[in-house]
Structure formats: structure tokens, C-alpha cells
């Protein structure tokens, strides 16, 4: 009886192994089932989801103007201090003081792409970009200034 059980076990084991091997063998001979993305070669055709969050960017138009008024809503909304806004006071032609941003500091090394800053922005000045190739050799390069030098607030954005 023992021998019979033993042989049954061996045969059953071999059959189950062969079943598994047949499955893997199927994919070996069916190259159409390959799902591997050829990443560095497919850079030109790589299409990411349009909502993918890669980094925070500030859009500038052709006149080097942006929509950030320096209200610091994003800075307050950010859970871990990724954004730091340094404000200054501009003089308008009428002689009034007007608040504006001096520097929009963005710490990419801290950012978790949670989208809370973009949700909080009342003027739509910042948005999420899809760029993900941020690898650097030096950590200091990850601290970025989002407003371009010499840029100013677009007319009519309050």
C-alpha cells in the first residue's frame, strides 16, 4: 500500500510540475505576449497618463509673466514644507504698494506629489508636470526656483 501511495505522489508531483512548465513554456514561444517596455529607447513614444504627477511647475507665458500673486495658499496647504515663498512689495505706477513674489522656492527632494498645493491655488499659477527624469548626482540641484528671473504677475490676476 505504501509503495502505491508513494508512486502516486511521485506521478502527481511530476504532472503538476509539467503543468506549470507548460504554462511558462507557452509564453516562451509566444513573443506577442511580451509586455516589456523598452524604456530608454521608447522615450519619444512614451505616453504617460495625463493626470500623472511628476513635479510642480509654474507656467510662464511669452511675456515672461506668470499668475502667482504670492498669496502663500500653497505654502500653507503643503503638508511637509516643500514650498517656500519669499514675497516683496512692488510699487505700482499710482504709487501704491503691491505684494508680489520674489522667489518661489520648490524643494523637489521633499515633494510627495500629493497635489494639495495645486488644489489650493486660487489663480491656477502652478500645475503638475509629467516630467519624471529628475535623477541627479548632487542633492543641492533638487532645490529649484520656479519663477523665472525677471518675471512678473500677469495683468488682471488678483
Amino acid at each position, binding site marked *: 500500500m505504501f509503495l502505491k501511495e508513494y508512486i502516486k505522489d511521485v506521478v502527481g508531483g511530476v504532472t503538476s510540475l509539467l503543468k506549470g512548465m507548460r504554462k511558462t513554456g507557452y509564453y516562451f514561444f509566444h513573443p506577442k505576449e511580451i*509586455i*516589456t*517596455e*523598452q*524604456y*530608454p529607447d521608447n522615450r519619444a513614444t*512614451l505616453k504617460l497618463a495625463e493626470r500623472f504627477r*511628476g*513635479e510642480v511647475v509654474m507656467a510662464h507665458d511669452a511675456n515672461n509673466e506668470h499668475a502667482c500673486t504670492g498669496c502663500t495658499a500653497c505654502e500653507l496647504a503643503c*503638508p*511637509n*514644507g516643500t514650498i517656500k515663498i519669499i514675497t516683496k512689495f512692488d510699487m505700482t505706477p499710482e504709487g501704491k504698494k503691491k505684494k508680489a513674489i520674489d522667489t518661489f522656492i520648490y*524643494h*523637489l*527632494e*521633499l*515633494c*510627495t*506629489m500629493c497635489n494639495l498645493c495645486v488644489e489650493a491655488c486660487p489663480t491656477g499659477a502652478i500645475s503638475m508636470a509629467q516630467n*519624471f*527624469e*529628475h*535623477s*541627479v*548626482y*548632487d*542633492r543641492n*540641484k*533638487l532645490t529649484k526656483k520656479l519663477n523665472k528671473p525677471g518675471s512678473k504677475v500677469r495683468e488682471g490676476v488678483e
Partner: protein
Amino acid sequence: MELTDTLQERADFPGEIVPTAGGGIIISSFDGLINWARSNSLWPLTFATSCCGIEMMSTASAKYDFSRFGFEVARASPRQADLIIIAGTIVNKMGPVLKRLYDQIPDPKYVIAMGACAISGGPFFYNTYSVVKGADHIIPVDVYIPGCPPRPEALLHAMISLQEKIKSGLTREQIREQSKA
């Protein structure tokens, strides 16, 4: 000979300088060959502490497959690995363990800091008492990838950057000085 002269000028250079004789054409081109070989056979250590570890597993899986670049198999023992991918937060209790793992890896060894936590503490930078604010406080890091967690493609990009770095044969300090200039 020029190299030794420049080194001797630096009084703070630790260790003894032994001048090499001869031109070094054969040796330097042999160095290039070694660097090329090294850059294409990096075996990472399976060091995953949190979320980024899952993206590292995704990179190893069929869709992204980092074996295409010679990151052939992830090794569980540091003695068989060449590269640590610090995937996840390092806390104060884990710090000594990470240092010990790094020490156990045979030279030459490379480190990639993956994700915001490993670069700077990321989401746990403020308001916590237990998180190391960046793995480079413990071990030197070669390549940083921001993201929380970075996409598998971003990890592949970092791996290609590391290969480029190894092929160039420059040290971390040389690269940093070049980028400053």
C-alpha cells in the same frame, strides 16, 4: 607625474602617495575597460524599507525589467551585491544597520537614494522625531531620484545615470566640483 604633483600640493590629503612610474596608456585604457564591465554588471541588494520597495519590485518585474541593463538579479546578501538602492525611509534605529550593510558590500560599491524619504526624509522631514533626514548622513550616495515613490522608469533613468557615472570614472567629489563650475 602630473597627478602626483597636484596631490602633493594638497596638505590635507589623507594617506600616503606612491608615485606611479611610466606613461600609463595601457593602464588607463584598461581602466576604461574595467569601468565599462563594472557598469554593466551591477547587482543590487534587496534593501527595501517601505513603499519605494514595491516600485523597485515593479522595476524588476516583467513590464520594466531592469535585467536589460545588467542589474541582473537582486541579491539578498550584501556580500554578493554591488549596489544598494535605498528604497524607503531610514529611521534612527535602522541607521546602524544600513551602515553595517554598506560596510559589508565589497568594493567598488554604489548607492542610489530612491524617493523623497531616502533623499531628505521627504514627508517625514518636519514634525517627526525618529526619521533620518536623508540617507547621505549615514552613507555616501551617488545618485538621487526624487519622487514619492518614483516611477519605475525614473528608477531606470537613475540606473542609467549611475552607469554613465561609472563609465566616466570620476569620483563623487569630482562630479560635484564639475557641476559647480
